[in-house]
């Protein structure tokens, strides 16, 4: 089974301020967008980041072939248990997710 990262052009994560993380999935084509938009549920994203699905904001942006998720940061940026100040590593967890 292919991973999300193999299907799409790029998966990017960044801080959206110190309290939120945002993940942009640039699908690169309409076909890949449809596959991600229908195949990647918010519940699955919530489980990857061990968070509550209700806290996740989701945007399926057809015009850009982008699926975007924003969620409370797994740790507040720079808190003693934070592991990634800029939040850019988190994309890898989604990119490595197997997708039908």
């Amino acid at each position: 089974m292919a991973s999300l990262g193999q299907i799409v052009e790029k998966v990017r994560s960044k801080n959206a301020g110190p309290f939120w993380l945002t993940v942009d999935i640039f699908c690169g084509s309409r076909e890949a967008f449809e596959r991600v938009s229908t195949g990647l549920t918010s519940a699955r994203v919530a489980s990857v980041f061990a968070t509550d699905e209700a806290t996740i904001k989701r945007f399926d942006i057809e015009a850009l072939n982008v699926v975007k998720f924003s969620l409370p940061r797994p740790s507040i940026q720079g808190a003693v248990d934070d592991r990634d100040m800029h939040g850019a590593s988190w994309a890898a967890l989604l990119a490595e997710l197997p997708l039908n």
Partner: protein
Amino acid sequence: MSQTRVLVPSGALGLNYDKQALRRGLAAKPDIIAIDGGSTDSGPAYLGRGVSKYSRSSTKVEWQGLMEARARAGVPLVIGTAGTCGADSAVDWMLDITREIAADLGQSVKIAVLRSSQDGADMARAYADGRITALPNAPEISAQVFTDCSNIVALAGAEQIAAAIQTGADIIIAGRTTDTAIIAALPLMNGAHAGAAWHGAKIGECGALCATNPQSGVILVDFDADGFTITPMADGANATPHTVSAHMLYENSDPFILYEPGGHLDVTQADYSALDARRVRVTGSNWVPSDRYTVKLEGARPAGFQSVLMALLRDPRYVANAQEWADDIHAKCCAKVEDRLNLTALDFRIEIRLIGLNASFGALETRAPEPVEIGVMGIVTAQTEALTGEIAKMLNPYLLHHPLTQAEEQPTFAFPFSPADMNRGAIYEFCLNHVLELADPMDAFSLEVVEIG
């Protein structure tokens, strides 16, 4: 109505800019040069300490280039969030650099200094009065938080930048502002379409990140009564409807809505069209004014002291059993610290992150690699520097010699440094994600005009 042309040299002072592209931008006769000087993105220590993350020398070289450009163009130069965090101490640092450059260049300049730092006691009172409210996912706070902070800043909007521009200053050094305010202010003063002013400012605030060749920095944003146009200045940098609209995703939790002091931007209906291969025209952005005028607050408070130790595991047996080894060290070292320093588990924190195994994600890691070697990062946090040093020195022998089994010969691991423990000093944490309501936009800010030369 005339256009307003804003030249943005780069996404932040300290990230450098393409000099040829800057000359090209100046030749296009901008009405203002606007650059951002900061962000929370590098973490709470910069706000906590009130200092810049960038080298003073780099800042001076790049700022001198912009001061020379301003003098040639005869238009205002504005920097927002000076010195990374925009606290008063960072604004003063930037003002000091500006004085040095003005003296070096023999420039006579009028400088407007906008200060954004907030007094903790004032903010505690505002909180008690119900004028401070939480944004989504804000930490739980009490009035105490405000006096605990070493620095609190309020994010100025277009109104405060406009006040600074109206002084007739050549240079505006602003403390914390929203990224967009320094770009949106002049177009709004000139009567540009409000939605376009904020939207164009958001697209332009990271410089050429909204185009191809993103590291080239320099872009022009033209604002008018209907919309805005983005024109990158560097060779090989092209704005396309895709690169421009996709920039709304960048570091934004919502790609369609952007909250600013005094209202919010809604780009749901925006239309992005290519004027040619390089330029993009945007219309249909909507500004929705709010009933209350609020500014966002950022605060950082001390969170103890920290020391870090590094060791390397290369022995295959230790690499294969690194987690078990680290867990055993953690348990034994914590017990020793509690016993010898007469502490409880709540008084200190020892963490051992295994680089090469799961240091990025901890328990969320899904892969199980077979690394050649593992970096061991021991992190010790406690309430005083002396205590942190003591605990780090107790962790040291474990990271150097702890065996997997009692029966084997004592192992020794690689320490890259002497001393092994690195004192990080005081650490800080972000503790506010709130807005402050103001009766007048200038209430939380101060404006000073300084004449040099």
